[in-house]
């Protein structure tokens, strides 16, 4: 029983990442009608925002310590982060310790700007182009972005640890211990998802966007400049992907190709949820996360060897055959 509860928890926190990425992806489909293969790269850039902040906070001045030697036998160079120098040992160390949560503040403006620049500078010109062209251009962009990150940060993963206080395990249910940061990630994703839904549901802006998603032409006829709003939506989608990435760092160390790793999965999630359906994306994200967790249980693998390798794809096939437009898809979108 505990094992099953654990896997449900695990599925939920896996699903959080899927849901967050898929949410932005489906938002871009729904609003702009663009197949964005660079969305995974946005997630990756988000994760590297926290790497960057960590690097910035660890910017150090160097002093030579003649009493110690480095690996070549030369006098060792001791690095002291400026932050520690300025704020003192304890405050400085605390700031470095909390660099991942701090990176949220750092990442939001960066991701919005990246999203805005991407949309205005590139994606905008591809609204009227066939999906095939969109795929090619965004795929090219994804490669370029990840190669740039690789050039700066290398190919190996870089640890971005959670703050000391949140890196242990917590007892979520009696007798069930779970990593604290994963619980934080799950709650965080609920907040972000909630915020996006609330924004679309309760603001005028959101209403216009939703109307635009339903029928772009009509809204255009009302004299509303829907494009401008959609640009902002692209920024928001980028921001959501970025936040998902920032907070994901402590779960798995970021590397330059983590975006590609998530890209295909998040496409599957979006399609299983139903193209352009926000609740669908979220539901499918959590559903596939939980199923993936269950499929990796030993007795399941013993029962069906290899099931953990293919579960997501198998479920996707079954759902698409039973429900032609995914769980909550609308007719006529991307067919």
């Amino acid at each position: 029983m505990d094992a099953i509860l654990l896997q449900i928890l695990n599925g939920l926190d896996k699903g959080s990442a899927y849901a967050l990425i898929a949410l932005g992806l489906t938002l871009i489909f729904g609003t702009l009608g663009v197949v964005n293969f660079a969305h995974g790269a946005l997630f990756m850039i988000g994760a590297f925002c926290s790497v960057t902040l960590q690097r910035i906070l660890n910017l150090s001045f160097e002093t030579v310590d003649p009493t110690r030697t480095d690996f070549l036998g030369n006098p060792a160079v001791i690095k002291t982060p400026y932050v520690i120098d300025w704020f003192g040992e304890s405050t400085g160390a605390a700031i470095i310790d909390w660099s991942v949560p701090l990176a949220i503040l750092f990442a939001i403006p960066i991701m919005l700007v990246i999203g805005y620049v991407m949309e205005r500078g590139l994606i905008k010109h591809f609204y009227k182009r066939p999906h095939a062209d969109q795929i090619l251009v965004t795929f090219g962009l994804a490669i370029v972005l990840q190669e740039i990150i690789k050039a700066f940060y290398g190919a190996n993963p870089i640890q971005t640890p959670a703050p000391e206080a949140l890196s242990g395990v917590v007892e979520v249910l009696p007798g069930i211990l779970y990593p604290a940061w994963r619980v934080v990630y799950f709650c965080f994703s609920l907040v972000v998802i909630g915020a996006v839904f609330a924004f679309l549901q309760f603001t005028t802006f959101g209403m216009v966007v939703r109307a635009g998603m339903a029928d772009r032409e009509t809204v255009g006829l009302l004299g509303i400049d829907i494009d401008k709003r959609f640009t902002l939506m692209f920024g928001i989608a980028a921001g959501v992907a970025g936040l998902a990435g920032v907070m994901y760092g402590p779960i798995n160390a970021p590397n330059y190709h983590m975006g590609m790793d998530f890209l295909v999965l998040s496409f599957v999630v979006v399609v299983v949820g139903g193209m352009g359906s926000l609740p669908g994306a979220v539901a499918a994200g959590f559903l596939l996360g939980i199923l993936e967790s269950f499929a990796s249980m030993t007795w399941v693998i013993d029962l069906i060897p290899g099931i953990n390798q293919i579960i997501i794809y198998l479920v996707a096939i079954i759902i698409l055959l039973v429900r032609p437009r995914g769980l909550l898809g609308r007719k006529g979108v991307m067919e």
Partner: protein
Amino acid sequence: MFGLQKKDTNLLLIVIALTMLAPFILNPFPTDSGLAQFNAGYPDLMQRFVIFGIFAIGFNILFGLTGYLSFGHAAFLGVGSYSAVWMFKLLSMNILPAIILSVVIAGLFSLLIGWISLRRTGIYFSILTLAFAQMSFALAYSVLTPITNGETGLQITLDDPRILGISQTADGSIPVTNLFGMEMRATTDLALGAWSFTFSMGYYVCAVLMILAFYMSIRIFRSPFGMMLRAIKSNQTRMNYTGLNPKPYTLAAFVISGMYAGLAGGLMASMDPLAGAERMQWTASGEVVLMTILGGAGTLIGPVLGAGMIKYFENIFSKINDNVLHTWFSFMPDGLENLMVGILHPFVGKGWHLTLGIIFMLVVAFLPGGLVEGGQRIGRMFGRKKPTDDTSAKTEPAE
């Protein structure tokens, strides 16, 4: 000629000439010059050009004509490779039965996957094919290792039975793939002044098959069947109300393109008897999509150009290291030399992906019809229409 219209005949003749003379065309630089780095006329790359050309031609029959974007075609290529290698292991090193089996198996496999996936259209179809291919990949990598030899890839070994051939040669080596005794590895070198050219048996076998595949694709493009496929892309409603059932047409196109992929896979294994699981991964499926779009989806020659371009970058640009760069600019003063190397460094060698990504973006931004459109524009600049493609076959890419 060949039952084709004049324009198509010309195109075919050009393609024949280009493929047959490829060893010359691809080695334009003298062997000892610094630019020899850009020579692509060695057997392996030439074989890859035409093999991926076949793959892309086949993919284009499905995607270019019907607009159904399959993200799982690499699975058929992989299945073709595995079939061929198994033939080498069990039957003989003659490539003919191997290739026939790979086409047949890939055809059957695509029939199964197509039959299921074609119940859906648009992106739902794409995701279904993607899911099947990823499942094939994951299983080939792990659970199916007895058949696929997993991560290492299926190889031929000294103790394979090869009932119609020999398990090992007299000197204890693995026999070589051949076509009725003509070894695929055999090459002839030709030195011509400062130039040298390599003629490979394997390449010419692939080239002949590619020309046949290309010819078949022209026939299909111009046939009633090809027209029906374009009609499906254009308007399925009208198709239905004209008394036509689109499903068998798309399924046939799917299976034909799957067989092309199987042929490519079989040839790949014939040139180099190994079949690895990563041939089936989604990135490999994505690559053929990119080749087709890059070259020009729905055009006859575009996919071949796209395939050539991507393979060229993968094999030539990735090999330019700093050392080579320094050689090129060694005539400059040191500071300038280092500057030039510094500028180019991120784009070559390990940065070849970056260059490819930039090229994808540039091509799609400025040449919406792909490389073929670039060719047409150049042709127009010189005052005549380039005969590389027939506009009536060119259709708008898929929605």
